[in-house]
């Protein structure tokens, strides 16, 4: 059941790059126990919005609140430690490390003494367990020892998600996780998201309309940096502006 305070809330968020307004007065909420999908054509500002929420970019104006607390200009590592995990649109894994090592390093970040000089990284059970579990959740156990650069594109997208999971986030910002995945990989990820949903707040940026309508509780449609419509899947499906501007045909119909 969604809680009264949203896990992550953006209010009137704006980001300018010189003369270009990439994100224009966007407000949205990601609630605990919900999957909030963000859709829109390329260039709509979705990735910029994720970067703003993840702290990679500073907003030109507007606020971001994490569980009600203002996150004015918080930097990525602070947000990560507060439980905001993200995946990148273009796979951003450690290419020279194995899938397992990638996840273990991710899990290490939240250890109380992540910087320890005298503790052997490989001896740490906590991070090793977290890594194994994360890899199992996305179905990459068989490829645990493969180096990042040897993984297929779809496997790398799965590793992106696994790394995010290994940090045990309460809020997930997923930037097109399904891009380039084969059908069974996509199904597996969607099932995973459904399993994760009750305990987390998930913001999902995606182009795959079937996936979005299958799994989202709330959908926000963006175009040219601002919000066109936001609401339940049915409401969005029937919204005239959305149909006209985005697809030119009824959304989600066979």
């Amino acid at each position, binding site marked *: 059941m969604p809680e009264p305070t949203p896990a992550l809330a953006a209010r009137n968020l704006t980001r300018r790059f010189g003369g270009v307004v990439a994100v224009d007065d966007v407000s949205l909420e990601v609630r605990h126990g919900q999957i909030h999908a963000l859709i829109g054509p390329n260039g709509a500002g979705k990735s910029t919005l994720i970067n703003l929420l993840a702290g990679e970019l500073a907003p030109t104006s507007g606020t971001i609140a994490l569980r009600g607390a203002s996150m004015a200009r918080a930097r990525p590592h602070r947000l990560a430690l507060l439980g905001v995990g993200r995946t990148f649109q273009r796979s951003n894994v*450690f290419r020279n490390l194995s899938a397992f090592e990638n996840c273990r390093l991710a899990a290490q970040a939240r250890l109380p003494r992540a*910087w320890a*000089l*005298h503790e052997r990284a490989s001896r740490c059970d906590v991070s090793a367990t977290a890594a194994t579990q994360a890899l199992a959740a996305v179905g990459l156990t068989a490829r645990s020892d493969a180096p990042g650069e040897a993984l297929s594109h779809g496997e790398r997208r799965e590793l992106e998600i696994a*790394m995010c999971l290994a940090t045990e986030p309460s809020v997930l910002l997923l930037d097109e996780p399904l891009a380039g995945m084969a059908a069974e990989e996509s199904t597996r990820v969607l099932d995973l998201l459904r399993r994760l949903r009750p305990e987390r707040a998930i913001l999902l940026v995606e182009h795959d309309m079937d996936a979005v309508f299958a799994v989202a509780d709330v959908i926000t449609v963006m175009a040219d940096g601002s919000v066109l419509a936001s609401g339940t899947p049915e409401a969005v499906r029937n919204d005239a502006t959305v149909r006209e501007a985005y697809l030119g045909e009824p959304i989600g119909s066979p």
Partner: protein
Amino acid sequence: MNAARRFLPLLALIALAVLPALAGKFYVELVAKIMIMAVFAMSLDLLVGVTGLVSLGHAAFFGLASYVVALAAPDPYTAANLWTSLPLAVAASAVLAFAIGALALRTRGVYFIMVTLALSQMVYFVFHDTKVGGGSDGTYLYAKPEAKLGGWSLVNFGDSTQFYYAMLFLLLLVFVFLRVLLASRFGHALAGIRSNEQRMRALGFNTYVYKLAAFTLAGAIAGLAGYFAAVQFGFVNPDMLSWQQSANVLLMVILGGLGNLFGAIVGAFAFILLEDLFSSLTKHWLLLMGGFVIMAVMLLPGGLTRAGDAWHAWRAHDA
């Protein structure tokens, strides 16, 4: 190939251990000098090879420690105390490294390289232009520091063989310390930063703090090397802080191969032996050195310790 990889370091260690019994004083002193430079190179490898920070100003920390030991003596003819002057010198280098790092690490990539160069030049000018430590003339260290414990002299640094073994001990100590560090969580985090810093930040690592810690530690170890370099040479001057010195140690690291620490040791040996060889051939030996540097970086970008890989890749390409 793997058997060789495992035995080579052991053989090298044995060779180093028995050298003073077999070779004359000149070689004993030369190899002791090389071992000091190897410590210097390993400290830079921590920065460049492990963390991915290319510093062109590392000599500042090396040279500062040299000056501290020279100035820590009450006068040029009285010996300083090892137990007080060594920590002082290393601490000085660490503090300088912290200060320079705190500022330089605000920049990235090419800016970082240039800023480390410029800031270490500032330190160079302090010693070159002012009267501290004798200005451009430098200062002498006639009496080597004493390592006394309860009235007993532990090591006589004036004796070539004893100094040699002390340096061998130092080399092993630093090597083991750094290997443990590399295997630790801290070391893994540094490697992650080198591989993909943005990702590390997104995972929750405060990369600035990690980089600063690595920079300070590397500076401290460089100071350790600088201290003993001054002790051996008996003379310190601003050249020990020069950017040419910084470029030379950078060359040693890339010559040997980045990231595995062995490379730094191999690189130090290769560089100094070549320097010795070239300078005996001609007055214009820098020309040979320059040509060699260019050839080495062009043909062996992975360094000597990865020459085996380069060879195999070349053979495979041909087939």
